[in-house]
């Protein structure tokens, strides 16, 4: 068995060295294809990640109608607290709102001079339970809140939620359409290269068939070659993506870097990386099967 494996590896290596140029081209093309695919994966991954972080902080603000008597506030609070999906809530009185605005404006707080706290609406800041912090579930809570007559307006950044969801969907869709196209391209190119390798070994294969070598014995080195091409291609793609991810970040202007520092720009998780490598190998393997079906018939 050890002998068999050694022999297979030796033959594979010799085949690849004998056909070095087209092997390198193939690996390069696989790497580029996989790089395009994994770039989209990375973008979608980060955007999803960012979206999730942001969703996590999502809260609903319900503004009370002006002139709602403070005697009703207590009842309103307990009513809201009982709603499905509500975790905690905080009452923000017009005075609190005023303080908050003063704090935010800092040195420019003189802008607020002459404004009476009473003109600001009171509001409820509602924190949702974890499983309600997403674009579909949040709408259920909002619908409930809208039924309460004391609320004037409900805000939760709806435009953002929708734009983000659409963007992520488009990215994911592009990722998979591209993925599909590149998949075909990779199978095509590996099978093409392997046909070259196989035809450069035609004489030897013929003699092997002459001597009664089993089809598996003849084919395995070509399968291994496909696997190696896929693995190296996938590996290079990940390496480039990593460099791109690093380089891009450090070459950005400092202002954007500072802004980005607040949002983590992550690299692909280990699991995805392994999947990309595996994917490359599977595609390479597939390419070699296509090739050997076409040109490795026993004669």
């Amino acid at each position, binding site marked *: 068995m050890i002998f068999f494996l050694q022999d297979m590896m030796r033959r594979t290596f010799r085949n690849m060295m004998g056909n070095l140029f087209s092997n390198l081209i193939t690996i390069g093309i696989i790497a580029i294809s996989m790089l395009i695919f994994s770039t989209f994966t990375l973008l979608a991954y980060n955007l999803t990640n960012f979206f999730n972080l942001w969703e996590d902080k999502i809260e609903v603000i319900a503004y009370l109608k002006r002139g709602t008597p403070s005697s009703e506030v207590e009842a309103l609070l307990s009513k809201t607290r009982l709603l499905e999906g509500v975790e905690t809530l905080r009452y923000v009185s017009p005075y609190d709102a005023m303080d908050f605005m003063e704090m935010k404006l800092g040195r420019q707080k003189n802008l607020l001079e002459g404004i009476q706290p009473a003109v600001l609406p009171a509001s409820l800041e509602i924190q949702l339970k974890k499983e309600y912090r997403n674009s579909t579930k949040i709408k259920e809570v909002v619908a409930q809140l809208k039924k309460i007559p004391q609320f004037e307006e409900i805000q939760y950044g709806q435009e953002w939620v929708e734009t983000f969801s659409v963007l992520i969907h488009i990215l994911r869709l592009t990722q998979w359409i591209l993925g599909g196209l590149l998949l075909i391209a990779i199978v095509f190119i590996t099978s093409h290269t392997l046909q070259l390798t196989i035809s450069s070994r035609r004489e030897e294969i*013929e003699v092997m068939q002459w001597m009664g*070598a089993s089809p598996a014995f003849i084919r395995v080195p070509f399968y291994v070659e496909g696997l190696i091409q896929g693995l190296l291609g996938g590996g290079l793609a990940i390496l480039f993506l990593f460099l791109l991810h690093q380089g891009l970040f450090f070459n950005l202007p400092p202002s954007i870097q500072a802004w980005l520092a607040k949002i983590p720009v992550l690299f692909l998780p280990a699991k995805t990386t392994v999947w990309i490598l595996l994917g490359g190998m599977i595609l390479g393997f597939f390419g070699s099967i296509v090739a050997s079906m076409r040109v490795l018939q026993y004669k």
Partner: protein
Amino acid sequence: MIEAIIQMQHVFKTYPSQISALSDVTLEIFPGEFTFIAGPSGSGKSTLLRILYCSEKPTSGEVIVHGMHITQPGFKKIYQLRQAMGIVSQDFKLLKDRTVTENITFALEVTGHPREEAKWKALEILRHLGLEERESDSIFSLSAGEQQRVAIARALVNSPSLLLADEPTGNLDAKMTLRVMDILTDLHQKGSTIVFATQFTGLIKRYSYRVIQILNGQILDGRKADTNKIHQG
């Protein structure tokens, strides 16, 4: 009753060029027989052998070798068939850029023999065929007769129970021809079946082995199978 090791029934072969190479060939060869396939150039000897080792499909007819129905559509075990035989083809089929020894060990390695064993066996057979001094020369540098001996050595290295040899002495001088014949006789005496295609009637006359005459793709009468001489099993 002894089961034939080779059976051909009403075999026809017409090449795409409309040349009819075999027509209605029916024959049986029994285990342990030494059989000459004799006929002039172009009579269809090589075609017949190629059909036996499955390198060519007959246009019609049935062929059974080693109990395998090799003409049946979907027959997939060509490699098992070939592992059970040694083949010397008219064009040698050697790897020209490898050495003599490499060519022989290659044959053993691809059927799963460890390299050391292969090397040792190769040297032994090369000595028999007077090639021990050329063992590390590449095939390119050998004469046609030397190449032919390498091809014979390669076919014999597995001690095959069935040897199909297509004009194996065609390029050899008288002395070497005798040497090869001695080796084949030895193999035959150990129980192997040998099918030997040749156009040299002089060679055939020296031996009392069975002869199947072929002319224009048709079998003529020859020395019939001598069932007394056939080895059992």
